[in-house]
């Protein structure tokens, strides 16, 4: 048994332990900290006038996150257009 197999077994057992602990320690559908969820559910219609809470979080409460996503898309388009440009002979 080479050292590579031993390392793989150790890594997979650590991963399995993580999965098992996550599955049994946190009950499904009942998170421990619900303060922010309750705040957003109760106040999103009054504060932002939006019926869809997910859109409110994406574009209003977490607007900087969406700005980062837009920047990533812009960088990807710029990189692709730069790599595949037509080179004049």
């Amino acid at each position, binding site marked *: 048994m080479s050292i590579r197999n031993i390392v793989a077994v150790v890594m997979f057992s650590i991963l399995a332990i993580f999965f098992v602990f996550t599955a049994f320690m946190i009950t499904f559908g009942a998170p421990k900290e619900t303060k922010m969820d309750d705040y957003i559910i109760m106040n999103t219609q009054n504060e932002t006038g939006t019926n*869809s809470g997910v859109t409110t979080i994406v574009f209003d409460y977490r607007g900087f996150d969406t700005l980062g996503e837009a920047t990533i898309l812009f960088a990807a388009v710029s990189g692709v257009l730069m790599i595949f440009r037509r080179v004049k002979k």
Partner: protein
Amino acid sequence: MSEMSKIVRTISNIIFPFIMVFGLYVIAHGHLTPGGGFQGGAVAASGCIMLIVAYGSTWVLGKIKTSRLAVFESTGALGFIGVAFLGLIFGGYFFNNFLVRKGILFNVVPKTGFTGSEFNTAGVLPLMNFSVGVKVIAGLFVIVLVMAYASSLKEWKE
């Protein structure tokens, strides 16, 4: 990529308007229904990519230039940041929802709880959805178009 058979082209001709209308619907109703600018933009861009697959990238490049699509993409990004800066000017801080109670458009505030969906709500969120949608449509379309054209070239000169 050359063009595919006539069956594929006919079917893509038929379903292309429906895909585009669905994508634009998801963008326009992003503040009411599931989805938004990114998701609807991805749907509409996949409709355009279907045209690339059916007709070939050379035909599509004869219809629209990549530089024009890049201009659309940058326009979407500038619109998004511009709306955010308008919040800085009119509301006091970056990404402020300045239209929500005192604006001309999208200024209705619904009651808390289960309400009907009214389109004229949500402040600046429809504008942001629209600009992000334009950006995602043009961005994904130009990425796939340029890659498809580059992979269809016969000769690669170093």
